[in-house]
């Protein structure tokens, strides 16, 4: 990578919570021809860079929809990647003149926002779900464009966790370092920078084994605040300034760093629903078995293996309700509106509301269906059938 490219990659990584807008449009990888696959993606610079790296040596067309510089999952959740953006990308790029097929490979995580049926109605293009993670694309293409169970499950390997950690750690470390340098001198600042970077890195490295949801998450944060204090104290010792005041400042800084992380550590992972978004508003995925036609779209798009096809009953079952991320993908894709969200108090969000308002945040998507009492609807139960 050239120096400017490295600098911009670093910048985009630590600033990844903000959109980074690449020019949307058609990006040829290799020398694609009329029968090369067409892969839809977003206009987030980091994603496009990773895609080009992963697909190097192949001939494919990347169709970058204008998601305002937001990554696929967030854009699909927030209404910035819907059938409108896909239709706009197909039409405005002139891809129809460059290929002689009409098949679009959609990232699985776009399922929260894109309705393939409406893309087909407007353009005649058929959609096929690709893997959840772009790293799995080469194998997916070699396999003849079929996903495996492994492709569909969202993974979050160490390297990506550390990338995500940098998003939190760099800013907390710089801000905290500056603040504590003012309070206690440059050594204190250096101590804070080092302890924040190491502690946040450690949190993300250990993430698969940590409890980050529910009340017990405070124990996790407490333990890492103690670790941070220890690291800060060690740095103070090395720099020859282990005064009681400095040690106290290191402890305060570590507690503050964990407080910042607790804003939404869970939502920074693909494993849990976001704490912010579901705040006091936890919805359950709910199936009306009598509506289920065994189409299987929901199983294909669920990134958390919550749903399973049950052969004998020819119905979908909610096999792992507690793993649900509340992403809504299965609801948006169900051809017979058999899935929906239900709040603990019985209110129901119908599929149409999910399709038009997307994410479930701070209760604003709450819609109560008139005359529909979920308590008496047969089959509307949280327990797997």
């Amino acid at each position, binding site marked *: 990578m050239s120096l400017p490219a490295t600098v911009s990659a670093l910048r985009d990584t630590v600033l990844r919570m903000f959109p980074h807008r690449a020019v949307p449009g058609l990006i040829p990888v290799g020398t694609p021809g009329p029968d090369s696959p067409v892969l839809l993606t977003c206009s987030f610079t980091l994603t496009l860079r990773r895609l080009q790296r992963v697909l190097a040596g192949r001939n494919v067309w990347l169709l970058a929809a204008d998601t305002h510089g937001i990554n696929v999952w967030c854009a699909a959740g927030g*209404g910035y990647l*819907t059938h*409108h*953006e896909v*239709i706009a990308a197909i*039409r405005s790029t002139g891809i129809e003149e460059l290929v002689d097929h009409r098949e679009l490979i959609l990232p699985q995580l776009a399922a929260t926002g894109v309705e393939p049926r409406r893309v087909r109605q407007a353009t005649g293009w058929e959609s096929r779900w690709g893997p959840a993670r772009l790293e799995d694309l080469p194998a997916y293409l070699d396999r003849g464009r079929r996903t495996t169970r492994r492709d569909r499950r969202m993974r979050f390997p160490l390297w990506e966790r550390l990338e995500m950690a940098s998003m939190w750690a760099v800013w907390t470390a710089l801000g905290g370092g500056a603040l504590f340098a003012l309070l206690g001198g440059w050594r204190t600042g250096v101590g804070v920078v080092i302890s924040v970077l190491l502690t946040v890195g450690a949190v993300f490295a250990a993430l698969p084994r940590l409890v980050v949801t529910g009340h017990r998450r405070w124990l996790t944060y407490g333990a890492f605040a103690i670790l941070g204090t220890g690291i800060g104290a060690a740095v103070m010792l090395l720099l020859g300034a282990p005064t009681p005041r400095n040690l106290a400042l290191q402890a305060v800084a570590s507690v503050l760093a964990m407080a910042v992380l607790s804003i939404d550590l869970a939502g*920074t992972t*693909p494993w849990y629903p*976001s704490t912010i978004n579901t705040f006091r508003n936890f919805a359950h995925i709910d199936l009306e078995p009598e509506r289920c036609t065994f189409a299987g779209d929901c199983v294909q798009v669920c990134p958390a293996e919550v749903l399973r096809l049950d052969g004998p009953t020819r119905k979908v079952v909610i096999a792992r309700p507690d793993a649900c991320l509340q992403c809504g993908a299965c609801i948006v894709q169900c051809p017979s509106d058999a899935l929906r969200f239900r709040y603990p108090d019985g209110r129901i969000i119908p599929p149409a509301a999910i399709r038009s308002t997307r*994410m479930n945040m701070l209760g604003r998507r709450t819609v109560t269906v008139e005359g529909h009492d979920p308590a008496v609807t047969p089959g509307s139960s949280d327990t797997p059938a």
Partner: protein
Amino acid sequence: MSSFVFMKVLESAPRRYDRGMNLLFLGRMEQLHEAIAAEVAAPGRRILDLGCGTGGVALASARRGATVTGIDTNPQMLEIARAKPLPPGAPPVEWLELGATEIEDAFPPESFHAVTASLVLSELGPLEQAYALRTARSRLRPGGVLVIADEIVPAASLRRLAWWAGRLPLVCLTYLLTQTTTRALEDPGGLVRAAGFAEIHERRFGRGTVVLLTARRGEAGP
């Protein structure tokens, strides 16, 4: 990849859109809507408002008696627009969830006397801008009018720098308070000309940062 933190900000945007825009334009949004409507709206005229958002321009045109269709891709914006009242006697506005590149799916050629697009074009990528303008032109009747209002960046680099510096505090404040912002166009006249429009007139609105452009589809030719 999964920074859902960001989503909370995105979601609240439609609800705060009106407030954000008014702040960004120092309370002159309404004047802008009226200025656009004054160019094209009259009883009996059919108008398409592209990217109608919360409905400011479409409703201003309807108040002047025009029959307006407002289209936008954001259903939440449309919901807000739908809830806004119109005075008795004004023709009701038709609101459709449709993108600027989907005009051809809903309207046959030569359907409208005018097309309006306020703070929309700058939101689109270059290819979509060109596509949307070409289709908009084909949906206009011969002699039909296009009105575009958008922010414009000065072309000269020094003036451009001054423009950014002057704009930055207001943009930051608006974004902090309402999570809305706008983008700017560089050469709206050139875009419109490339799409086949003629009789292009540009004038400035509000201290020179917004351009109000009118253009016509010529009488002859498709």
